[in-house]
């Protein structure tokens, strides 16, 4: 039991670090890479992000887990973690390609036609074209397969009508991948078709969604008679659920191990500096209990991440256990931020700036929902990790159009 790389891992890390050190600035121990702030000029960010991606691609450091034939280096999961750690210690632009490179590219490799692979994968890898994922709908979130966006075939084209939601970066994406209902008379999972859609098509309207914390990183995307060539079907017609599953599995796999900071250190500082009933809050036994509980859960997650990394290092592939991270971490963030507000007494309701505890408290509920709610994650742990029986399903064995989707 130790925290060192294996010799092979150390060698890989040295190579990665070597290239990074000659191409980017190393961050100091307390620095973080630049994020994409609200209001920052988006075009500039994208340009610098694309420039960095091209540089990596030229040197063979882009999409390292992709097979060599598509421009990657066939790296293992643990090598990917090491690369991400090292890149995270360098001053690099925010990455806006994750959804394409991490989730959609692998889907195209698995289910796409040869023509699709040769047209789309390389520009995706080089960051020349940015991709978005058009999955959730207002009435199809946790129950994604309940999606209702319609696709109707007309000759060599398909006509799409409907509405997607929670689409990251729709405004600056060149391509999207969309799951649609192509046969409402088939059973729920059997009438879904998966398309590549040109985001510049006419009939697409993109509206930003304002979140409760004022942020606008997501969009609604409306499809109004949008025409898509038949050649853009990924996999087979009415068999799109299989491809969607591949995308979702890759989403899960892209959750890294480790568990970053959730503000515990800052909370300790707050407790040290805040007067509570005549002494520093950190001296109050009740405050201590709460803080200790946060620390223990947060470290428990971090060390669970170490166990996952160890398994990856031994050749395992990421499994549903990764769900624990979000299931524990998201409510923890909310409790921790809420407690920090409480610790400030009446001043805890002052909304100071975007990096305040109040801001975290407003942002936290979103983390408990996005990318799988607490409840869906508990189902995943219960069914896929523990092997408990699935939910009783009332939506199986009947045509999609006959499944109740609203009262009466």
């Amino acid at each position: 039991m130790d925290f060192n790389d294996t010799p092979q891992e150390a060698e890989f890390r040295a190579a990665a670090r070597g290239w990074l050190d000659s191409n980017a600035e190393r961050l100091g121990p307390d620095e973080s890479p630049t994020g994409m702030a609200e209001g920052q000029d988006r075009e500039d960010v994208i340009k610098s992000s694309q420039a960095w991606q091209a540089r990596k691609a030229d040197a063979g450091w882009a999409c390292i887990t992709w097979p060599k034939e598509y421009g990657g280096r066939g790296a293992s999961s643990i090598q990917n973690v090491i690369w991400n750690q090292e890149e995270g210690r360098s001053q690099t632009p925010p990455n806006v390609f994750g959804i394409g490179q991490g989730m959609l590219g692998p889907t195209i490799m698995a289910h796409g036609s040869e023509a699709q692979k040769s047209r789309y994968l390389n520009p995706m890898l080089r960051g020349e074209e940015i991709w978005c994922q058009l999955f959730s709908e207002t009435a199809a979130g946790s129950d994604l397969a309940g999606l209702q966006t319609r696709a109707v075939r007309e000759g060599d084209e398909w006509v799409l009508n409907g509405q997607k939601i929670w689409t990251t970066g729709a405004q600056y994406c060149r391509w999207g991948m969309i799951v649609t209902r192509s046969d409402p008379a088939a059973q729920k999972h059997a009438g879904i078709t998966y398309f590549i859609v040109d985001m510049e098509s006419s009939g697409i309207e993109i509206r930003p969604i304002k979140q409760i914390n004022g942020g606008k990183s997501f969009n609604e995307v409306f499809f109004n008679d949008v025409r898509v060539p038949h050649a853009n079907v990924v996999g087979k017609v009415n068999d799109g659920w299989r491809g969607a599953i591949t995308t979702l599995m890759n989403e899960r796999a892209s959750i890294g191990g480790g568990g970053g900071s959730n503000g515990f250190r800052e909370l300790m500082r707050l407790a040290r500096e805040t007067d509570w009933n005549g002494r520093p809050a950190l001296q109050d036994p009740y405050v201590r209990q709460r803080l200790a509980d946060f620390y223990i859960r947060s470290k428990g997650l971090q060390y669970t991440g170490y166990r996952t990394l160890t398994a990856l290092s031994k050749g395992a592939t990421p499994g549903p256990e990764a769900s624990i991270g979000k299931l524990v971490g998201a409510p923890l963030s909310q409790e921790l931020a809420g407690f920090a507000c409480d610790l400030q007494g009446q001043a805890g309701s002052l909304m100071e700036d975007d990096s305040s505890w109040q801001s975290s408290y407003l942002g936290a509920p979103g983390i408990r929902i996005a990318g799988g709610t607490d409840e869906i994650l508990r189902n995943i742990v219960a069914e896929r990790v523990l092997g408990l029986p699935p939910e009783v399903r009332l939506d199986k064995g009947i045509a999609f159009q006959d499944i109740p989707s609203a009262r009466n």
Partner: protein
Amino acid sequence: MNFDFSEEQKLLQKTARDYLSENAPLGLCRKILEGDEPYSRELWQAAGEMGWLGAAIPEKYGGAGFGHLELALLAEEVGRALAPIPFSSSVYLATEALLVAGTDEQRERYLPGLASGELIGTFAIAERRGRPTAASVQTTFKDRELVGVKLPVPDGDVAGIAIVNARDDSGISLVVAELDARGVERESLASIDPSRSLARLSFQGARAELLGAPGKGQELADSILDRAAVLMAFEQVGAATRAFELTKDFMMERYAFGRPIASFQALKHRLADLYVKIELARSNSYYGAWALSSESAELPVAACGARASASDAFELASQEMIQLHGGVGYTWEYDCHLFYRRAKLLGLALGNASEWRDKLIERLDHPSAV
């Protein structure tokens, strides 16, 4: 055993609910939250006209002379509506302070305005982050002049008078200060719930006068906070109940996997637990209302129970509301965040739930102090 409100009291409550559902839908709260107005002047004026603001003020001071049980039910309705008005500051705090400690002259001077709504009052005791003690009060009162900074002061930007605790020769005293006078500077501060405003009040030699006996400021403040705690508990229970109802209704309408999400057992149990938590808070609040209205010696203990359980219930209800709505619950467009913000604001307004729990045991341990 008659642990319930009377038919007349319930009728008053129903009238208030009907009025608010007509005139103060959640859109009104949203309008204040998104706009520049600090509170809804129309609703405030109407509340004055209907006698709500003076519900506990005797008629001889221009009030409606109903009593505290009636006021508690009105507070519940104000909570249900997330009404964007300085009700708690002016009614539970400033008015109660004058009723508890004011001279007849002071009452005559201020209560009629507070009852009609022409005057807004507030209670300014916080000075810095954390849980204050008597020893941590820095504001001074000397030669009838106040010097110091209070923040955050709820509704301090719109109030005409503030009850302030300050250090003087005899210890801590309460004083009343007129905020439009010379020597007072106000600054609006951003609030986690912009439908309710917060301010910084700087007193730079502002004139003020004693409220109650000198040196009794801590005891008086505690007593005023106890009274406000009960009323605030009703406001919180009202808001929690509304959050619960909206969530339940949404879950009955929203389908996933071919059935209403309210039919999933894990979610049913969550709703059951939330319901129970709110009902226990309601019962504790009832007891607080009884103690308040009957001037019982149990008020200090009853107030702690009501306040702590109502704060916890509303906070949980507001969190569950977003979570059980799922993605749409996290959008600005849906109303969930109005409740989430208000829960945090109210939960901190008179000291957080853990402070009240701590006080509870202190008081149970020293019944003589009650």
